[in-house]
């Protein structure tokens, strides 16, 4: 789960990291009063809380020198649409005192199977440019998860990056706090860009990106509480309530469904090779009872434009008659132009096939490749009609 900037900063604060003084605004009333109440002095920066790349360039970051100016910016920016996402919240912060800008992040690295610290003395907007033109200016050091951040680790970062040994104390403190957060909050990524070095030599997190492992959310109630504030497609949220994973893929008439992610990927690959674009994929997980299958079919068919579902179920203990019955129940509630193509293998396969064959709109196939051929045929037939 990717946190919004204000959420990331709230967690930073819990770990004693300095962030610019600020307040979150989610209504257009009395903006100047709210800014005054939060004790902010002008100029302030108003930042749209949406997860889009190039937020500043897209017009999601504005500066205001007065309450009136802030009010007029909020009037336009709040609830507007930024690269397809609705802006439900704005973060207003004091404009920072910046002497220097650094880049700092910790991420889970799959090459070393552990955390890696990335640091550069050239931070801010230029970090991606630096990565291309002067990669040596970016220090990339794996952390031993059994020892964590040590003094010699910080010495290496300061020495190697050229930032200077005079910063070992402040950077060491910052890194230790961020690493503690990274571990305790099961982060995939904790990034501060830029880290502002103030004229007094203090380090302030101007912007923050935090991604938390979804599998660890059960033990992170503070992060879970943030989920509602993040814009998600309604079908993703609805599918989750049934313990399904719904993945928007592209646009098109076809949806795929399976009891495993690997199979879903194979189905999408083979359909794409045939020139068929897949609108969405749904992973049922374990326990494919008829009621759950029925809900899954309904959810996929409520995806705009989708009228055809390709289902592949392969499991030794999955009962095929349950699967078929779920499809039958779902199709009974739909208009007659919907098609479900099913490939299934498991217990009670014959009974399942019998139900499929007597269900209008359902077609059974013997394998994944045959299923893909059938999908292509059904789509053609639909076009001709």
């Amino acid at each position: 789960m990717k946190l919004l900037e204000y959420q990331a900063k709230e967690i930073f604060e819990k770990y004693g990291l300095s962030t610019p003084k600020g307040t979150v605004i989610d209504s257009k009333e009395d903006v100047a009063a709210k800014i005054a109440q939060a004790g902010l002095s002008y100029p302030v920066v108003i930042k749209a809380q949406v997860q889009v790349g190039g937020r500043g360039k897209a017009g999601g970051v504005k500066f205001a020198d007065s309450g009136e100016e802030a009010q007029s910016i909020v009037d336009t920016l709040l609830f507007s649409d930024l690269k397809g996402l609705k802006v439900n919240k704005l973060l207003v912060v004091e404009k920072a005192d910046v002497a220097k800008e650094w880049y700092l992040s910790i991420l889970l690295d799959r090459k070393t199977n552990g955390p890696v610290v990335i640091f550069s003395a050239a931070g801010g907007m230029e970090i991606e440019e630096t990565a291309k033109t002067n990669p040596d200016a970016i220090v990339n050091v794996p952390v031993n998860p059994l020892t964590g951040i040590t003094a010699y680790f910080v010495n290496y970062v300061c020495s190697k990056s050229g930032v200077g040994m005079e910063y070992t104390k402040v950077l060491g403190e910052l890194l230790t706090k961020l690493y503690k957060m990274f571990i305790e909050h099961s982060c995939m990524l904790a990034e501060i860009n830029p880290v502002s070095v103030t004229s007094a030599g203090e380090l302030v997190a101007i912007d923050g990106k935090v991604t938390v492992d979804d599998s660890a959310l059960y033990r992170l109630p503070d992060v879970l509480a943030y989920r509602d504030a993040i814009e998600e497609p309604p079908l993703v949220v609805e599918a989750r309530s049934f313990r399904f994973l719904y993945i928007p893929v592209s646009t098109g008439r076809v949806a795929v469904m399976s009891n495993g992610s690997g199979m879903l990927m194979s189905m999408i690959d083979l359909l794409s090779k045939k020139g068929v674009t897949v609108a969405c994929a749904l992973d049922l997980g374990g326990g494919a009872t008829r009621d759950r299958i029925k809900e899954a079919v309904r959810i996929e068919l409520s995806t705009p434009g989708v009228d055809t579902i390709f289902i592949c179920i392969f499991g030794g203990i999955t009962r095929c008659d349950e699967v078929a019955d779920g499809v039958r129940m779902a199709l009974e509630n739909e208009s007659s132009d919907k098609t479900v193509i099913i490939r299934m293998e498991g217990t009670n396969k014959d009974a399942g096939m019998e139900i499929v064959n007597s269900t209008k709109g359902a077609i059974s196939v013997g394998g994944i490749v045959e299923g893909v051929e059938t999908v292509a045929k059904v789509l053609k037939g639909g076009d001709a009609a």
Partner: protein
Amino acid sequence: MSILIDENTRLIVQGITGREGQFHTEQMLEYGTKVVAGVTPGKGGQEVLGVPVFNTVREAMEATDANTTIIFVPAKFLKDSIMEAVDAEVPLILTIAEHTPVHDMMLCRRLAHEKGLRLFGPNSFGIISPGKAKAGFMAHKIFSQGPVGFMSRSATNCYETVFMLTNRGIGQSTCIGIGGDMIPGTTFVEALPDFEADPETKAIVMIGEIGGDAEEQAAAYIKEHVTKPVVALIAGKNAPKGTSMGHAGAIVGEDGSGGAEGKEKVLKEAGCYIAESTEHVVDILAEILSK
């Protein structure tokens, strides 16, 4: 021969008294696996299906000659259970739970490897050497004994391929569920030497996915050290970027890192056969093995 799991496997089931643990213990016993002990704290002294239950892994290791453990506990307790098995120095530790926090696995992987222990999974069906023994929850009826070694990040793609292979009369030496998570206990490159050294394995199938660089690492190793034919299938070519495809590990970066094309390219350069689909894997194997 076969690798890792066979007739000499003496298995502990951690979480044996739970619903899943008990059901699959029965399945494993039926298949011929020697299950020598179960572990559930507070249930020590009981028996499940004739298997003695202990309170701790250490006691199970002291009382039996176990050499492998499989952990049937929910993801939120997996870290403690792996650490317990590591501390008791069980040489081979198999994990299956879905949705395990990746930080937990990062730590456990390190702890197991520091002690020289083998750790597999999670988000995996386990390991089976058909005709000999199985440790896991795979539907064993579709497997048959033979010359093909399997390792797969995906259970469903592996089942599908094995099912067709068995129907074509081609069996398997050992099938390893590598698992779909970001940090597995064992990656492809760490399992390759076992297959290369096993005389029964004549061909190796690697079912990979988008995300990470496990396939690239395997390719580099295959090029230098593997003499047996390797058939590779990479799932997820057409998955949207920046979206995890259900398996936490199956994600292509916004910059295209971890993409299928790059993986196929280096695998091809390493001399692997690249399959387009599970059915294609079977066709390639049929041809290789008929030579």
